């Protein structure tokens, strides 16, 4: 077995066609196509080594994402993609770990994992494709469904208060939190790219319409349909009076306040801070322990331990 990464035959330019795998099985008009397009665009722009890209997902329409990307990947079980991705990220710092999934996958069945992945600040990028409905299972209520939305499991309209994604992520401790709408492909691409550049648990909450079961969920955020796409203005630190009103994305309280903006909410970066990642903290611990071991071989270390048990 090899220990180092051998070179591929020759470095080939990563093109959209090299990244394209099978044809997406999404319905025509599904917002998820745009997210896929943005992902291709970023990978193509950034020219990451092809074999170092890992695309992971749980279960749902959105979670079929890895099949449509020609990269190492895994299509895991419903709601558990974050701990799976955590394992990959912690063991393999050489890889770029991307996770995709839906609102049910991320906020409902996987809600606890989202919480703890964020708290631990695991180094990965997570794109939550929120359509406010369960698409895959054909129109049941999701944790982000608005009150009153009629589904097959709430025929008279959803009655439970929807999750506020940004507030949930803030309280959990995510260190990069942004929002975008899939119809605003340039802005969304910027957000995902910034998430990718962030060291730590970076999340982009992307509103991605389900053309089949909730087609006009986010019309109010789509300028082409008469809505308004309100982008957060970030502080430029230019000492101008206008700057006073702009958002300091390191200010958690301010981020909470922005997160309270009425539906469909604001778009852009709500929050970004540097905090030691789980990856760094574990590495530091490993390094300090390894130093004490004076670079003994595995056999020697185990033998020493056994000698103490004699």
């Amino acid at each position, binding site marked *: 077995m090899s220990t180092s990464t051998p070179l591929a035959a020759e470095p080939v330019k990563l093109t959209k066609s090299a990244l394209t795998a099978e044809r997406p099985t999404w319905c025509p008009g599904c917002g998820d196509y745009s997210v896929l397009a943005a992902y291709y665009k970023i990978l193509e722009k950034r020219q990451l080594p092809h074999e170092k890209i890992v695309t992971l997902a749980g279960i749902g329409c959105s979670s079929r994402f890895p099949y449509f990307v020609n990269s190492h990947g895994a299509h895991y079980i419903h709601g558990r993609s974050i701990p799976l991705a955590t394992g990959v990220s912690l063991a393999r710092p050489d890889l770029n770990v991307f996770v995709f999934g839906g609102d049910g996958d991320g906020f409902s069945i996987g809600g606890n994992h989202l919480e703890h992945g964020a708290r631990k600040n695991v180094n990965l990028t997570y794109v939550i494709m929120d359509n406010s409905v369960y698409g895959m299972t054909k129109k049941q209520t999701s944790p982000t469904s608005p009150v009153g939305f009629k589904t097959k499991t709430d025929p008279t309209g959803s009655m439970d208060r929807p999750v506020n994604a940004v507030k949930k992520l803030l309280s959990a401790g995510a260190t990069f939190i942004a929002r975008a709408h899939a119809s605003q492909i340039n802005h969304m691409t910027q957000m995902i790219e910034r998430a990718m550049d962030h060291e730590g648990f970076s999340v982009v909450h992307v509103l991605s319409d389900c053309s089949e079961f909730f087609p006009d969920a986010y019309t109010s955020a789509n300028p082409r349909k008469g809505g308004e796409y309100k982008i957060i203005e970030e502080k430029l630190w230019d000492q101008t009076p206008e700057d006073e009103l702009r958002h300091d994305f390191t200010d958690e309280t301010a981020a909470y306040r922005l997160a309270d903006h009425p539906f469909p909410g604001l778009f852009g970066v709500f929050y970004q801070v540097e905090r030691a990642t789980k990856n760094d903290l574990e590495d530091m611990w490993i390094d300090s322990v*390894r130093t004490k071991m004076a670079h003994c071989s595995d056999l020697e270390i185990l033998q020493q331990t056994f000698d103490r048990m004699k």
Partner: protein
Amino acid sequence: MNTPQTTSSSPVPTPVAGRADLRPQHIHDAVIRLAGNSQDGIQSVGGFLARLAGRSAQDVMTYMTIPSTISGGPSIFQVRIGSGEVLSAGDEADFLVAFHQHSYDTHIRALKEGGVLLYDSDNVQPNLDDKRFVYVGVQITSLTIEALGGTAKDKGKNIFVLGLLAAIFNFDAEKLKTLIRERFGKKDASLADTALIAFQAGYSYPVDNLLADRYHFEKVHKEGARAQITMDGNQAIAFGLIAAGVRYGAAYPITPWTSVMEILRAELPKYGGLFVQTEDELAAVSMALGFSYSGNLAVTGSSGPGISLKTEAIGWATMAEIPLLVVNVQRGGPSTGLPTNVEQSDLYQAIYSGHGDSPRVVLAAASVEDCFYVVLEAARIARKYSTPVFILSDSSLSTRIEAFDEPDLKNLVQISKPDLTPRPEGFKPYPLDKITQHAPPGTPMLDGKYPVLTGLEHDETGHPTGNPALHMKMTAKRREKLQKLAAELPLPEIHGDPEGDTLLVGWGSTFGPIREAVNRLRKAGSSVSAIHLRHVHPLPDGLDAIFARFRRVIVVELNDSGLYGFGQLATVLRARYCDPKIQSLTKTDGLSFLVREIVDGVSK
């Protein structure tokens, strides 16, 4: 005490401080039960004795129960020391140390007729009219306080008792003092000094006045004997994993699994590895799968309730064909069940839990020593067959300390790194004509086609499909690799004659008691043999040929006889061989089999 020469064990006539004149001086086996409260530190006395025996090349096996209450409450530690092969913790004690009245009241019935009761006469008033035992009363509490001075109170009476026992059994006091220094000196030298004073006070106590004999363990000289290692079953699992080259894992705490993860959390960084405590068991198995997927065979583990939670993800590992080690340190079930008792009732869960046709590899550890080796084999199988492998242990093995021959680490330790060599054109993650071996992320794919591993049914490239023919082929692929494994598994060794009347079949921690029962039955003239299954699923090919040579086959296991009258392994064997002579001997009292219970069960 089992003695080479036969001695009568008629009631001791002397009342107070009865003289143990009947006891032989040279013994080769002794069962000592320490009974007190959990804060009395009897666990550590037991631990010292176990380690001493290990360092003296005596075989040792200890038995421990801890109350399920967090602190306080009655607790016992039973240590059996032998110069020969020690197979079980012993049905009855030769020697009972009672710290409190309740210790005496509860455990006097565990003392053998003719056995010695050593009691703290400050706290215990035994019924001296009961002439079956030898009574040795020592003011353990006040003598300890006297020796240590007022501030220490009676803390240290456990070490005082250790000194007493050392005197009575002629243990090597110098070795014990070294152990005490090693144990306490690390934190604080004055702690070690205090402990040594308590030890010396006990050791120099004039027990001769109360007990005629001091005992000697017969020396055994093993030719070319390896040094002895002393550890409990959970340590053996943890260090077995390290020896197997497992460097990553994740879990959530639960009794009696927890100490495995505690050890790995502290140890793996030394090897550049990592063990993560997760938010729950679903995350634990998922993270372990993330580690495995990344090219590093990983471990997760738990006990019954936690294993139940991991089930869906383990099914994914079967379908996606990812190697993974799943340790279940079994306790009593169902539900929260009996958290600190022993049961072998998770065998069905290990073999069958999860939806769909999902063939499983299940191995079971027979002893503390075997915990170490079973893990090595599990890792080999997981890697070779790219599949999840269950390792079953149980609460009796997890807390039991045994001394065993030091493993030959030089020849056992495995180093394993992700194999990132570029894969040639035409690489398929799920080839129908080969056993899957994945290309972990980071591996360049020379034909430019990158694999996506999946829990959906798939074709050879991993492309999802509902094609009926492919589902049939892929189901067969996942099954056939385990059939291949079954064909290469060794048959278990037969203990006793290769043919005869009765064959006992066991798995897991019942190994020792079954073997001792067979020895006892054979000595009494019965035609009884035994086999012990390490490979519980798949079963090795050819067991039927062994069964054919016996009139009846009795499967001995710690679980319920079920709706149809058979325990869990018995049911599996009956389904496999359709052989009506396969019978069942089970029990569900939450305790390990006593040798007597097996002897009686077989003799019925």
